């Protein structure tokens, strides 16, 4: 962490001194996270392209005000999340349209009939590829906030406190939304596999 912060400091100093290759390094170190957040929050391909540019122009503009309270990547993640949030607000797209039943469902007791998503070790490569596509479709059906939280936790492997930093949501809320998001994702998958069984 200490070393990482020194590297961040060094990069920022170089960028502020006019070194474009240092900014290029910042882009290549953080673009994975930035693109993931934008792709989970925004569907339109043209708007995604505009937003990714907007994010890095903002990063460049605000770089001088970066206070090192967080990792540079987390700070850039926050800028990305807020930029997407503004976009969704402008387009009047809800970030989360909570179903009345959802709250209840997380508090439903497990029963024998609970859908269990399992993998079969003997399955072929093609089947695995197909499963990955089914999972992508199931993720797509989630509201933007759930998709983003799932990706930050499971793909980017960020800690709860980092997710809290990026989204501005309290840690308890992050955990609760993650419970609902995984449950909903499993339900979307169960709908698909049940349909296939019929």
């Amino acid at each position, binding site marked *: 962490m200490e070393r990482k912060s020194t590297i961040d400091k060094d990069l920022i100093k170089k960028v502020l001194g*006019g070194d474009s290759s240092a900014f290029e390094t910042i882009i290549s170190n953080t673009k994975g996270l930035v693109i993931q957040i934008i792709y989970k929050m925004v569907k339109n391909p043209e708007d995604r392209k505009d937003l*990714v540019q907007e994010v890095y*122009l903002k990063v460049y503009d605000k770089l001088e005000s970066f206070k090192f309270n967080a990792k540079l990547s987390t700070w850039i993640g926050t800028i990305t999340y807020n930029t997407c949030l503004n976009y969704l607000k402008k387009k009047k797209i809800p970030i989360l349209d909570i179903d009345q039943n959802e709250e209840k469902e*997380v508090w439903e007791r497990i029963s024998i009939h609970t859908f269990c998503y399992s993998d079969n070790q003997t399955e072929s490569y093609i089947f695995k590829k197909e*499963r*990955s596509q089914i999972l992508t479709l199931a993720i797509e059906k989630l509201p933007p906030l759930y998709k983003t939280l799932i990706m930050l936790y*499971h793909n980017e492997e960020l800690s709860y406190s980092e997710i809290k930093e990026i989204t501005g949501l309290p840690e308890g809320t992050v955990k609760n939304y993650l*419970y609902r998001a*995984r449950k909903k*994702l499993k339900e979307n998958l169960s709908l698909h596999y049940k349909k296939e069984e019929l």
Partner: protein
Amino acid sequence: MKIEHPYDKDIQEYTFDASNCSNEIIEHINSCEVCKKVSESYLVLSRELKSQPEPVLEFDLSELILDQLNFSKKEPIYNYLLSFIIIMSLGITFFAIYVFRDTFSNIFSANITISNYFIVSVTIFISLFLGLDMYRSYYKKINMLKY
């Protein structure tokens, strides 16, 4: 014996956050085949999420951004040069004022000639023009960054 399984939320906590899970729930899940299966299914989901391919851009992001930011590698040297020129000109100006202090005191005394008027007004005009131009280009650059 009536078995009451925990909530889905508890099983997720057991699966991803065991340290926050109560002993009662841990004991139940460890000894219950149904709950264990649900927990395992969340682990499978987590594993498959992790192996999902990351989205890739079809364009060169760095190139696109750097083009818009108009980075100039010469910028730091250019900045030093500019500061050097400004300091030098100020130095020369003050030196000149010192050397020609007698002449200057004449300018501001009663003997104002047409040529003195001319020099002063042209100087003011040029400074105003340069100042305005600098302000305009600064404003334009800031606006470009603010988007």
